[in-house]
C-alpha cells in the first residue's frame, strides 16, 4: 500500500477555486466562520439566520442540497447554483449549507481547500468547551529519538558474536533461530510465545549482541534470580546452530519463582504468560531507572520493543467537551468483529451469526476497536463542562505505535446468565502486511472532524506505520484444554513450531490457521532482520570453527 506523507494529499484546486483564492484569500473563509454551526459529533453547517429555513433565492425551494455563495451570501439549490455563477461573474465558489463543504458551481463538484478546512476545524475548537485537565495541550515529544535510538544503538554496537559451528547437524541451509522446544508438561503456552519472541527483531538483536551480559549481571546484583539472564541462555541455545530440541527448564523454574499465582502445572494462557514475561523483564531491568509512570522512556528491552501509547477520548454528546487520556500498553486486545457477511454483502448484526457465513477480518477488529462507542444510559459519565452526568461517546485510538505490535484476539465470551465462558473459534482473516495509519490518533481525530485537511496532533510523528507479520501463536481446542502452535516467518518462509517439531509450511496453512496472538513488526525492522539472517555461516569441512557474524545476528 502506498504511503503518503502526511497521510493525506492536498488536492489540486480547480481553476475557479484557485481564482477565488487569488482574489479573496482567506477573508471569505474568516467571515463564514461566524456563520458556521458545529455539533459535538463533528458536523458543521452554515447557519446565517438562525430562525429562518434556508431557501433557494430563485425558486424558494428548500429541499436537496443548498449552496451558500461566498461572495454574495445568497442561497441557491442544486438546480440553480450553476445559473447563479453564470449570471454573477466571480460567484463561482459556494458552500454546502448542511455540510460546510466547498462547491464549485461551474465544475458542479465538491472541491477542497486546506485554508477552508482549517477555518472549519478552528471553529470546532472555538466552540468546544476548553479542556479542563489540560492533557490535550501537551505536546508529545517527537518519536525520532526513541525510534532511531534503538535501531542505531544496536547496529552501531557492531559486536561480533562468535558462534560455534561445532554441531555438524546444523543443516546450514536453514536460518539460525529455528530450534524445537521440548514440552515440559503442559508448557506449550510458554513454548509458543518463546518461539515468537526469538524472532522479534529488537529482542533478538538485544540478546544476541550480548546486551544483557550474564557475567556483569551476576556481579552487579546480589539477586541470583534474573529472568533476562535465563532468556539470554535460551537465545544463545536457540541460535547456536544446535538443532536438537531444547528444554527450557531453567527458564520455567526462573519464571515460576517470580510469578506466584501462575506457577503451577496446569494449562495456562499464552497471553497471560507473555504479559508476565514482559513484566518480569521490566522489573529486573527497568527498575534501575527513573520511576517514570509513562513507559515511553523506559529503557528496558521489553518496553522498548513492545510499548505503545493508547489514547482514549470521551466526548459529551450534549456540549462536545472531550476528555482525553493516554495509557501505555504492551499489546492490544481486540474483540472479534462479527459483522461482515460476504455472501449477502450486508452487515449481519440482527440474525444469529452462523460462524461459517461470517468472515471476521483483522482490519474489521481494528475498526471495531477504534469505533466511537456510545456509552449507554446506564453508563453516563460526568461532564466537567455541563457539571452533570451525560451520555457520552468513547473512542480509542493509537497515539504511538510500538516497534513490535502484539495483537491479542479475545477468543472467549462470557455468558453471565449461564455463568460460563466459551471459546470462539471464529476464523479471522488477516493480512501479512498491515498499515496502521487509519487507527492512529491523528487519523481517528481527523475523521471525527469530517476528515478535514488539518494537522491534528500526532501528524508530525515519523513512526513507520507499515508492519509485517513475523509470528503467529495459534490455539486449537477448547477453553480448558487445547494446544498452542506458533508459526514464524523467517526470510519469507513460514515454519511451524510445535513444541519440539519444526517443520516448513506453506503460507496457505498459516492464512487458514486460528490466530490468538499476532506479532507484527515495523517494516524497516523486518527487512533489516531478513538481511542479517542471510549472512549464513556454512559449516566448512573438517572440525569446528568459529565464524564472526557482524552486526546484530
Amino acid at each position, binding site marked *: 500500500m502506498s504511503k503518503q506523507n502526511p497521510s493525506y494529499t492536498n488536492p489540486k484546486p480547480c481553476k475557479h477555486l484557485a481564482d477565488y483564492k487569488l482574489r479573496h484569500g482567506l477573508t471569505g473563509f474568516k467571515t463564514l466562520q461566524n456563520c458556521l454551526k458545529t455539533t459535538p459529533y463533528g458536523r458543521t453547517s452554515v447557519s446565517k439566520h438562525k430562525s429562518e429555513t434556508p431557501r433557494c433565492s430563485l425558486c424558494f425551494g428548500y429541499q436537496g442540497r443548498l449552496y451558500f455563495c461566498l461572495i454574495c451570501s445568497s442561497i441557491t439549490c442544486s438546480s440553480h447554483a450553476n445559473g447563479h455563477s453564470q449570471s454573477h461573474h466571480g460567484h463561482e465558489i459556494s458552500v454546502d449549507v448542511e455540510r460546510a463543504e466547498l462547491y464549485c458551481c461551474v465544475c458542479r463538484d465538491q472541491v477542497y481547500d486546506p485554508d477552508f478546512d482549517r477555518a472549519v476545524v478552528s471553529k470546532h475548537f472555538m466552540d468546544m468547551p476548553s479542556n479542563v485537565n489540560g492533557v490535550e495541550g501537551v505536546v508529545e515529544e517527537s518519536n525520532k529519538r526513541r525510534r532511531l535510538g534503538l535501531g542505531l544503538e544496536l547496529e552501531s554496537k557492531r559486536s561480533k558474536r562468535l558462534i560455534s559451528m561445532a554441531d555438524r547437524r546444523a543443516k546450514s541451509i536453514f536460518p539460525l533461530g529455528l530450534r524445537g522446544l521440548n514440552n515440559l508438561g503442559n508448557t506449550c503456552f510458554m513454548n509458543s510465545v518463546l518461539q515468537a519472541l526469538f524472532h522479534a527483531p529488537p529482542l533478538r538483536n538485544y540478546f544476541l549482541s550480548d546486551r544483557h551480559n550474564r557475567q556483569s549481571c551476576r556481579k552487579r546484583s546480589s539477586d541470583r534470580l534474573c529472568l533476562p539472564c535465563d532468556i539470554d541462555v535460551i537465545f544463545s541455545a536457540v541460535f547456536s546452530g544446535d538443532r536438537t530440541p531444547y528444554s527450557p527448564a531453567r527458564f520455567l523454574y526462573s519464571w515460576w519463582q517470580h510469578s506466584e499465582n501462575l506457577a503451577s502445572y496446569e494449562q495456562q494462557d499464552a497471553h497471560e504468560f507473555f504479559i508476565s514475561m514482559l513484566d518480569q523483564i521490566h522489573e529486573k531491568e527497568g527498575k534501575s531507572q527513573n520511576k517514570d509512570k509513562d513507559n515511553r522512556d523506559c529503557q528496558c528491552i521489553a518496553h522498548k520493543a513492545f510499548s505503545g501509547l493508547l489514547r482514549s477520548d470521551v466526548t459529551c454528546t450534549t456540549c462536545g467537551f472531550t476528555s482525553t487520556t493516554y495509557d501505555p500498553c504492551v499489546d492490544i486486545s481486540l474483540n472479534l468483529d462479527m459483522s461482515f457477511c460476504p455472501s449477502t454483502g450486508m452487515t449481519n448484526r440482527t440474525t444469529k451469526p452462523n460462524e461459517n457465513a461470517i468472515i471476521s477480518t483483522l482490519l474489521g477488529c481494528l475498526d471495531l476497536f477504534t469505533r466511537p462507542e456510545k456509552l449507554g444510559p446506564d453508563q453516563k459519565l460526568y461532564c466537567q463542562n455541563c457539571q452533570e452526568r451525560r451520555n457520552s461517546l468513547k473512542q480509542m485510538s493509537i497515539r504511538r505505535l510500538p516497534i513490535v505490535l502484539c495483537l491479542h484476539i479475545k477468543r*472467549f465470551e462470557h455468558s453471565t446468565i449461564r455463568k460460563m465462558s466459551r471459546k470462539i473459534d471464529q476464523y479471522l482473516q488477516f493480512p501479512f502486511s498491515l498499515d496502521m495509519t487509519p487507527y492512529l490518533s491523528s487519523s481517528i481525530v481527523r475523521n471525527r472532524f469530517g476528515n478535514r485537511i488539518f494537522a491534528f496532533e500526532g501528524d508530525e510523528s515519523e513512526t513507520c506505520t507499515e508492519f509485517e507479520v513475523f509470528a503467529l501463536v495459534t490455539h486449537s481446542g477448547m477453553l480448558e484444554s487445547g494446544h498452542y502452535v506458533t508459526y514464524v516467518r523467517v526470510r519469507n518462509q513460514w515454519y511451524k513450531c510445535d513444541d519440539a517439531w519444526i517443520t516448513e509450511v506453506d503460507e496457505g496453512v498459516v492464512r487458514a490457521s486460528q490466530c490468538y496472538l499476532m506479532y507484527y513488526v515495523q517494516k524497516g525492522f523486518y527487512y533489516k532482520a531478513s538481511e542479517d539472517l542471510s549472512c549464513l555461516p556454512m559449516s566448512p569441512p573438517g572440525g569446528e570453527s568459529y565464524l564472526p557474524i557482524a552486526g546484530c545476528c
Partner: protein
Amino acid sequence: MSAPNEDTMSSQLSSHFFGDLLDSIIVDVASECHRIARLGLDRNLEEEEEELRLSTQARVRVADPSNSGEANSKYVVDIFGQSHPPIASEIFECMNCGRSIMAGRFAPHLEKCMGKGRKARLKATRSSTAAQNRYSRGSPVSSYSPYSNSTSTSRLSNGTPGVGGEEYSNGTFEEP
C-alpha cells in the same frame, strides 16, 4: 369526514419528511466518500479483496482431507531430519532438588518440588482466602493497562503434546 383526509395527509407528510431525511443521509455518505477519495485517505480495496480471496482459498485447501500434508501426527520428521517421541525424553537435573528428571515430566515434578501448584497450596493453608487468591486474575503486570471492559477470566489453556485435536484434559479449573 375530515378524519381520513387528515390521516392520509399526515402519513404523506411523514413519508415526505422521511424521504428528505433519507436523501440527506445519502448525500452525507456520498460527500464523505468523495472527500476521502479526493484526499487519498481511502483504503486499498483491491489489496483487501485479494487478501480475502487468498484466505478463502487457503481455508478450502486446508479443509480438503486429501491435503493432509500438514500432518497432525507427532511421528513426523522435522526439517532437520529428526524425529522425537511424544513425551520429551531428554533427562536433566532438577535445579531445585538435584534429581534426574525426564523433560516431559519436568513441570509436574517442579510444581511439587517447589511447593507450588494447587495441591501444594491447598495443603499449605486451608483458609478460603488462599483458594480465592488462587483464582484471582489480578494482573501482575505494572505496565499493562486493562483499558477494555471485559472481565478478567479470559484465557485459553493449552494441553499436553499429543496428536493434534486430542483433548488432554489435565488440571482443568472450575469456572470462577
